[in-house]
């Protein structure tokens, strides 16, 4: 098989799996889960084979043509796609295996695993897409998969609402994305990524409109509201879709269209990302639900990546001559990679905790899990260490790359991102301490137990990746195109960044260790209730949107409906009838009850229409 057919196979395989499950395995959950896991295994294997193979290629075929307009179905397999495909494949496999244990008792297993397969198909399509229209198609499909999986437990109104909210919020972002694609098409005559790279019209509007899509998908301000609610979905789904891959698709898309960026657009993107990073970090501090902490943490880390992308390129000294690298792309993708490993690990770890505690999610009702769930505890600890940037773990390297880029390009952003890093260390240490230490604070925590190997094995694999994921030199050469763009501090800069990074870690984690003790209540809520309440209000985004939907949109809709009923159906239509009635009264004189008179009137009408038709009046 050629490499191209490998790529097509890896795209179509999960589609086939989903189709078989939907058509034949609806009642056979066990077989469906095995089919889905086998598919995921094959995807991971092929993704790695493709990445190791030196060949990089592009190919496409016509999908639809009308006039001069055509949409092509194509594959652009470069180093960037190779990296993303490997992340999707490896994390996807871990999540599939974990799901075997986690969803074992679920009544609708077939629907769940079918949904995972549809997601893999959509995500792979998005990764491989060689043009913006195709990207948009798979972009919408990952949105659909996300909808279906968030709403998996549809009996709960909260899950159903969260699914709907996720899809609609994403559509708001996609409104801009689609307009951006249309503009890009008419401005450049093509939406092919490679052709755009070869030459395009410089525009501020197009990249910003395209960025709207990323704002929705990667849950940046002000469209971040759907992601915390999306935690209503099963936890493995949160790990795969709402932490490691789909929400990162926004960043991946930005890296894909990097060539279209102009400085002004990058500045906007940088500030949106920075604001999201610090906003979400503050939100995370007051959360009680283990998944919600991780959700806000994900928002914050996505903000980090978007900010990194927005920081743009960097001129570096390379063996004596200056060289400009796409440092934003490099740093964002590097952090995307390590984040995918440690955040998927943390989410699956939280899933293991939730599973062990019989679906208890409140961290203040946990405690003492360190001894009861040792594998989960140690792997989760590695995850926490990685995200807060403990030296030599994955997050340390990628976060430092971003901090260095900020330090070099924009000091204000650097300060805010360093503050965010302090907060990250704070809330993650809080989470870790309260969940795992002290005495169990509920029945379910007291009876907590480790799950089977399907639950622990993925944790161990991801923990390993979270340890080694930061050593770029050990990655296959196939990702060189991306990793060569990662900025690296040298000399005094290196020292500044290293010290900053150690400082923020010490301050954040130290504060958390000193302040939070494993207890049944939140220490901040007790000691500073006003601050706690203010933080917990999360700047009232949900309230404002809720007000708009209920009071503005819905009332506007009802008003229009009312007007339609009254004016159109009532006054105009019946009013016309009334008018006709009046005319009829006047015409009663003509109403002589003789057929020939009516025929004359009919002819008169036809002649009037006729004269109109021929343009006499």
């Amino acid at each position: 098989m050629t490499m191209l057919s490998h790529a097509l196979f890896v795209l179509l395989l999960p589609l086939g799996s989903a189709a078989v499950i939907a058509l034949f395995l609806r009642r056979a959950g066990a077989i469906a889960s095995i089919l889905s896991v086998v598919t995921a295994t094959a995807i991971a294997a092929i993704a790695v084979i493709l990445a190791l193979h030196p060949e990089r290629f592009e190919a496409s075929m016509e999908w639809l043509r009308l006039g001069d307009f055509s949409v092509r179905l194509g594959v652009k397999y470069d180093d960037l796609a190779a990296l993303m495909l490997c992340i999707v494949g490896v994390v996807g496999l871990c999540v599939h295996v974990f799901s075997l244990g986690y969803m074992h008792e679920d009544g609708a297993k077939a629907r769940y695993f079918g949904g995972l397969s549809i997601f893999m198909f959509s995500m792979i399509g998005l990764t491989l897409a060689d043009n913006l229209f195709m990207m948009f198609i798979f972009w919408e499909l990952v949105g659909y998969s996300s909808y279906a999986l968030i709403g998996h437990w549809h009996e709960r109104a909260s899950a159903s609402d969260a699914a709907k909210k996720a899809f609609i919020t994403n559509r708001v972002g996609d409104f801009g994305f689609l307009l951006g694609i249309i503009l890009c098409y008419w401005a450049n005559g093509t939406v092919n990524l490679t052709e755009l790279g070869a030459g395009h019209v410089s525009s501020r509007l197009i990249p910003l409109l395209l960025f709207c899509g990323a704002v929705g998908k990667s849950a940046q301000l002000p469209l971040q509201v759907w992601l915390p609610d999306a935690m209503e979905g099963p936890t493995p789904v949160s790990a795969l879709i709402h932490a490691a891959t789909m929400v990162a698709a926004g960043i991946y898309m930005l890296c894909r269209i990097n060539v279209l960026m102009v400085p002004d657009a990058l500045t906007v993107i940088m500030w949106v990302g920075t604001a999201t990073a610090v906003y979400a970090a503050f939100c995370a501090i007051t959360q009680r639900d283990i998944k919600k902490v991780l959700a806000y943490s994900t928002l914050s880390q996505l903000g980090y990546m978007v900010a990194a992308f927005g920081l743009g390129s960097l001129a570096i000294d390379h063996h004596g001559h200056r060289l400009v690298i796409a440092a934003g792309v490099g740093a964002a993708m590097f952090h995307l990679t390590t984040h995918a490993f440690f955040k998927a690990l943390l989410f699956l770890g939280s899933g293991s905790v939730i599973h062990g505690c019989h679906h208890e999610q409140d961290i203040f009702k946990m405690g003492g899990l360190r001894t009861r769930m040792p594998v989960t505890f140690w792997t989760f600890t590695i995850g926490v260490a990685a995200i807060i940037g403990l030296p030599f773990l994955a997050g340390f390297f990628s976060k430092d790359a971003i901090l260095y880029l900020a330090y070099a390009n924009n000091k204000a952003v650097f300060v805010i991102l360093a503050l965010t890093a302090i907060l990250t260390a704070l809330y993650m240490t809080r989470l870790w301490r309260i969940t795992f230490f002290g005495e169990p604070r509920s029945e379910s925590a007291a009876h907590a137990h480790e799950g089977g190997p399907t639950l622990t094995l993925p944790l161990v694999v991801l923990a390993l990746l979270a340890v080694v994921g930061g050593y770029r030199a050990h990655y296959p050469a196939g990702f060189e195109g991306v990793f060569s763009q990662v900025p690296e501090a040298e000399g005094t800069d290196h020292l500044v960044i290293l010290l900053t990074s150690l400082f923020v870690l010490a301050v954040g984690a130290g504060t958390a260790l000193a302040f939070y003790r494993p207890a049944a209540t939140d220490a901040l809520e007790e000691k500073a209730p006003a601050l706690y309440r203010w933080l917990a209000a999360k700047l009232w985004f949900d309230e404002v949107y809720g007000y708009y939907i209920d009071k503005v949109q819905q009332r506007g809709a009802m008003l229009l409906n009312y007007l339609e009923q009254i004016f159109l159906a009532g006054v105009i239509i019946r009013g016309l009838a009334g008018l006709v009635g009046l005319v009829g009264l006047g015409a009663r004189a003509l109403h002589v009850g003789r057929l020939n008179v009516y025929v004359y009137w009919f002819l008169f009408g036809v002649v009037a229409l006729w004269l109109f038709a021929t343009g006499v009046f």
Partner: protein
Amino acid sequence: MTSLTFDPLLLAIMAPLAVALAIALGLPKRWSVRLAYAGFGVPALVALWAWWQYGAAPSDHGYAFLRTYSTGLDGLGIRLTLGLNGIALPLFVLAGLVGLAAGLYALQSAAEKLKIYLMLLLVMVGGLMGVFASVDVFFFYFFHELALIPSFLMVGLWGTRGATENSYAAMKMTIYLTLGAMLSLVGLIALYVQSGAAGAHSFNLITLREIIAARPLAETVQHHLFALLLFGFGILVSLWPLHTWAPLGYGAAPSSAAMLHAGVLKKFGLYGLVQIALPLLPAGIAHWGSLLGALAVFGNVLVVGFITMAQRDLKQVVGYSSVMHMGYAFLGVATASVLGLGGVVLLMVAHGLSVALLFLLTTSIHHRTHTFDLTAMGGLARTAPVLAAFFVAGTFASIGLPGFANFWGELTIFVALWKFSHLFTVLAVAGVVISAVYGLRAAARVFFGPPTEAFAIVAAEHPPTDLRWNERVPALILLAALLFIGFWPRSLSAPLNATLVQLSAPAAVAPAAK
């Protein structure tokens, strides 16, 4: 040119009409049902065969399968000419598939007076196949009327609302649609006379095109003729503000009639615009395009979109959403470009399939909830997961999710629209958010969350079952077609593009005479 050899297009029209006639002549019920399967099945099979063979079939003036039959009215220029070009083919397929699905759904419905119900449906199907297979303008119109009249009767006799409401809906529909049809008829006859085709004694569209290409109509004449066709057809397609018959009529119509009317018959007006009015009257659309676009985007898309959000009745949601989506089709017409018109035809097919699917499922939901009131349902997915899956699929299709045919229609119209009006494009794309809001809200209210108290009582009395196989088969036919076109749009866009490019060429070389 009468040919005695086998003609599948004629068969597709005559088979349902012949079965209807046989039922009318007093066929016993058992045989009526059996023959009805053939009456609904043959047109669908012929449609699929024509789709399969279209590329390979010899083309005559851009038409495949072209045949002409003498009617004895040759002196008036009326001959039965059948054939399919790239615009007609997709709609012919649509009519065949929706006809089959509506027929199968009717056969399992146990409607009262089933024989008459089937007979009227068969007449509708025969008429619809005829509309899209006719190359002759007279028969194009004739078949439309043949299909339209049964729909009035069905709303009046088998309506799903109270008797008064049914007859009000039926009457309103009749008045509006007859008015629309009258206007367009005058327009068509005027076109026939003005173009000089009357002298050539031919209602044949090919001849009309040749005559007009040789001697274009004066611009003012084009403006007036186009206005008659636009507003005549516009009423039939529920152009805002002439749309109020539609939600009312569909709300009252029995499921199979609503499927055929909203799914296929309503497309007659758009089809007339794309196939007849635009190629023959290019100056007309140039004159009226802005008004049409404004009505479509502000009225159909935005106003009706918001109104749809406020509906509490499931059938009204589907009815209003159908009016909204026709706004996109009108926007495509307004662009008068190959891309936009291609989008219109794709959207017509996609919308026809998806709205038929939704009307079908709405009735199936009603059988289980005994109400259309969205505030008295909830949680139906627990007991009817397959029904839920179909409905969610239908909803996502209608809100333009990629993978379903509707996406291609909307996408191509949006792209084309940018060249026509930036503002309209922005507003039209915003409509995509609106349709997601009401679509997902309706699906959630019917199927997800805990059941409402009202529904819990109903469910306790009549425990809801999942979708039965004889309901699933027609739904599957529609869903499969939506997915096939969604994944393989080229199957329709290739013939469509060839025809549209060919039709747009003469207008380019022969501008309207001043």
